[in-house]
């Protein structure tokens, strides 16, 4: 009888010991989950901007879309793509219509890693060649001057560098219609 009781007690003690280890595992899981969630909700785009430069030699416009991404969390993130659409018009009335589009698409980033507790500027660039539809639209929007009303819409995609499965997270592009001066 006593021998049997000792055996069940022994199994019980082992069970409790394993449970203590499991409780540690649960704490680890919870803290990891909190860290990831914190990263997902705290990463943000502080600002988005459009820079347009004219190359008089080749008669082309260079459009640069820049983002200022803040990562106040403890994990590194990797912004790997910016999906955007750039609009230009004489005024804000029809600025967001499809006819005002002067470029867009999906641009991958070479080094989009934003380390923990840092702010980093990321940019993508494209060219508008003379004679193209976008070229004509931009020229029309500037109306002979050197500035046009512009708007940027879209989002950036990021993933967590240490967690491959946490992918496809979106970052908004905070951009309000504004008058952009063309450089050059």
């Amino acid at each position, binding site marked *: 009888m006593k021998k*049997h009781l000792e055996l*069940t007690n022994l199994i019980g003690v082992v069970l409790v010991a394993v449970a203590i280890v499991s409780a540690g595992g*649960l704490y680890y*899981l919870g803290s990891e989950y909190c860290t990831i969630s*914190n990263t997902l909700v705290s990463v943000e785009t502080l600002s988005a901007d459009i820079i347009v430069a004219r190359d008089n030699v080749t008669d082309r416009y260079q459009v640069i879309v820049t983002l200022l991404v803040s990562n106040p969390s403890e994990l590194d993130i990797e912004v790997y793509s910016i999906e955007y659409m750039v609009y230009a018009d004489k005024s804000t009335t029809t600025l967001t219509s499809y006819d005002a589009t002067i470029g867009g698409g999906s641009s991958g980033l070479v080094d989009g890693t934003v380390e923990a507790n840092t702010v980093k500027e990321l940019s993508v660039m494209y060219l508008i060649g003379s004679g193209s539809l976008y070229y004509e639209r931009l020229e029309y929007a500037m109306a002979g001057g050197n500035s046009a009303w512009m708007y940027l819409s879209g989002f950036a995609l990021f993933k967590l560098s240490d*967690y491959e*499965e946490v992918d496809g997270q979106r970052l908004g592009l905070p951009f309000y219609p504004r008058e952009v001066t063309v450089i050059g």
Partner: protein
Amino acid sequence: MAESSNEHETFRTKLKLVLWSVSAGTIVAFFFSSNFLAWATQFNPGGSILFISPLMCGIILGVITCQMEAISTVISSIIMTIWTTIAVILVLMSPLLFGIVLDPTGTLWMIHAPQNMLITILLVLPISLLGAITGRLFAENTILSSAMRRERAMLKSETEEWYKMLEEKLEEKREALEKLKAEQEMNILREKEGKAPGGPENG
């Protein structure tokens, strides 16, 4: 003095039962949470662990509660299920509990939390109960010492003897009662015959 010692022993048994059930629940909760949050860790035990862990913990609970009453095994499974569910909810809701995510619909991962909680409740109770009963049966047939089994057999035969004796006593009583009843009926009949108006005395 003996009563106090008995109470103390009962309290200890109950405490042990709760402690073991909560421990088993913690282990199951760890495996379930690891499976649900496999994307967040390097440790992925796989889907089969959802069946294996409650079954194994149930078997262990059945073995260690074989000395107690049968109802204790069932109660331990229920406590284990409740604790597992609480622990899984705590882990899955940890970002909310710590105030990191104020809007649960704001993150993609929260969407699966109710489903995972439901899976936990639906899987743990039946599987752990099955395991506990299996474990108890196994322990009663194999682990129990031969002395213990002899003791149980003796107790069983003693109880059967007691029942037999009780039956015999009841039979004796029944016979005596029937005899008494028959005598009483005879007396009543005799009395009736003696007092009857058109009886032999008046003729």
